[in-house]
């Protein structure tokens, strides 16, 4: 791992937001992720690509501890997190989205947004007795914040609709906007452009860039190479659960091994 980091002078150890080393996970006899590593420098947009079945989503699940890794070490924001429960990892500032957008159908769009805010006073049952005024104030503030975010992604008009009534693309937007409500340091986007029309892909890329400018780091799984090329500072390639290559998008595009992995041996 060290030699890779030395190859890239702009990545200093102190500004790595997320590092994962030696991650492995086997499902029965299938080694889904095998001794993989990934480094995400703070403030960058990092891509994660690989052919279908390469273990990208599993790697995401390992990073968030949605699936417990067999081996490996994950350090997020200077702290080891591989043994933390998933919700605690989320509270540390690492928010994920899902490959197929998952919205809470029978909650309104606004409620979906409000839910995401971390550490709300009213989430604790005992606080509902004596902290009613604080809860009310927080709700008001959160609603304002949610409206600003919804406005920026163009969902403000849908705030009162059921999230389940949104189209596929709108769900993707909502999921990202909802993640933003959680004040993340790092957002893991699992195929944000999958099944989305080209115009909306452009919009999503614009949002990601804007949020990145505001200081949020991104790790993105994506098959759409245009998205990867336009957004990412660095790209990691995974194949058959192992690291295949890492570099700038341009380097990756000309990498023979990567092309082979994608096109078949």
């Amino acid at each position: 791992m060290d030699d890779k980091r030395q190859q890239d002078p702009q990545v200093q150890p102190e500004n790595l937001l997320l590092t994962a080393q030696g991650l492995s996970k086997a499902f029965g006899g299938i080694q889904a992720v095998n001794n993989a590593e990934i480094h995400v420098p703070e403030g960058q947009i990092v891509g994660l690509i690989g052919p279908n079945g390469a273990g990208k989503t599993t790697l995401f699940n390992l990073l968030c501890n949605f699936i417990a890794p067999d081996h490996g070490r994950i350090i997020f924001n200077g702290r080891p997190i591989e043994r933390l429960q998933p919700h605690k990892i989320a509270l540390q500032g690492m928010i994920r989205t899902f490959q197929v957008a998952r919205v809470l159908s029978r909650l309104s769009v606004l409620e979906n947004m409000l839910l995401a805010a971390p550490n709300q006073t009213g989430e604790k049952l005992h606080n509902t007795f004596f902290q009613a005024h604080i809860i009310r104030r927080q709700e008001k503030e959160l609603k304002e914040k949610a409206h600003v975010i919804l406005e920026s992604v163009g969902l403000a008009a849908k705030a009162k609709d059921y999230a389940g009534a949104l189209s596929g693309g709108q769900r993707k937007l909502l999921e990202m906007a909802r993640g933003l409500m959680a004040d993340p340091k790092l957002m893991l986007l699992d195929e944000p452009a999958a099944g989305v029309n080209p115009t909306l892909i452009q919009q999503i890329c614009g949002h990601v860039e804007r949020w990145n400018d505001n200081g949020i780091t991104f790790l993105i799984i994506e098959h759409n190479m245009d998205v990867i090329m336009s957004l990412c500072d660095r790209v990691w390639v995974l194949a058959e659960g192992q690291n295949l290559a890492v570099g700038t998008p341009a380097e990756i595009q000309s990498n023979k091994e990567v092309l082979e992995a994608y096109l078949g041996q």
Partner: protein
Amino acid sequence: MEVGYFVSLALFTTIYALFSLGLNLQWGYTGLINFGHIAFMTIGAYTTIALTLPNFVKEMPQRLMEQYPVIESQAWLASILKGLGDILPEQVPIVIAVMIGAGLAALLGLAIGTSTLRLREDYLSIVTIGVSEVVRLVAVNEEWLTRGPRGVFNYPLPLAKLQPNLFIKGVMIASLVLVLGLALWRLWQWLLQQPQREGHAPLSPALFVGYVICLIGVAICWWLSFSLSLTIEMPSYLQELVLLMMRLAMAAPLAIVGVVLVYASCRQTVQQLRAQPFNTHLSLLTVTMGMGLVVMFFGALIMGLGFEIKLLGIHIIGSSEYTYKAGLLWLLILTVAVIFWQLERWVNSPWGRVLTSIREDEEVAKALGKDVFRYKLQSFMLGGAIAGIAGSFYAWQLTFINPDGFIPLLTFQAWIIIVAGGAGNNVGTLLGAGIFWAYNEVTRFILPNILPLDDARLGAFRVMVIGLMLIILMMWRPQGLLGKKEELTLGR
């Protein structure tokens, strides 16, 4: 029809409503499938009466040794038990006993929850069925603990020795009127918004007033017509049928007056009536009937508390005697009102939002930093505690309990109530309970006179009709009476 009968009916309905509110928190809001809700009620009921019955707990170690003589051969165990018998209190105040009962029910929830809530939800449903049967069988077999099938009776009842004077009666009645007023106000608010929520033109109060007038008309006629009697000799079922017809004939004119009033009250109303879809009328009718039932229950209760109306020396309604059950109902209604209000606050708070998010997709809740397991546990325990409190009232209402009163059927009756009323809706749960018991009582008294069947067959027939009604309900309104239709069409 006596006041006492209505009080009993209202007691059962309200106990079922409370019991179902607990399940609604677990299933309707959090999505936890609990098929063993009765276990919580059993624990609540037995704990309360065991703690309040003089010397019942104190003699438990003694009875344990009598039932299992093998213990006495273990000297150390026997001495511990004897010591325990000396320490245990003779009796616990009734309020504390209820709290301990609710606490133990919550502890059962904790025990079930910690072992199964991390698993997939279908495991929970299987485990809860098992646990509820285990609890019942323990109650049947461990006679030292529960006196088994012989049952427990003569336990203290709350407010049983109360001899209310005029002031206390006044306070009781005033508190009930307050609760009733708040409940009706809430219903009113809800009702006015209902068509809008379903995407139709808003409702004017006039329309509703018309419905209420209709209902009051029907109710008064029905009430008055009970004084009718037939002098001609005929078979009893025919007699009942004729009486039914006569009552309907009496009730019809006022109902017609009500309808005319609705149409005459203002032109706008007529237009509104046409603009409203059929469903709005049905829900209006249901809610009006629900309100009528509520008013009737409260009326009966107020009379049961010893309130009467006399006009020019003629006794019109009510009786001057305070009955124990009316006092119990008063207590129960206040309890339910407080629990209902608190539940509504909870489910509408950020805490409740997390619960519904878990119901929708717990992975999302987890990904957004919510401790899903903890919330599930809280919901499960809280629902259990509420069922425990319902259990205390259940025991007081029956004044005799044995394990036969805690069969799994009760769990499924609570499920019927929730499904019929609309899951994830506390008002719907109350309404469901009202309808369930109204149906139960109406068929119990009217069917035997109309259908020439024996008791066993009638019982089976009534259950069949419940099933049929549920099927019709699920076809016509799968979201339940107060559920939201659009929620059904939403994809994941």
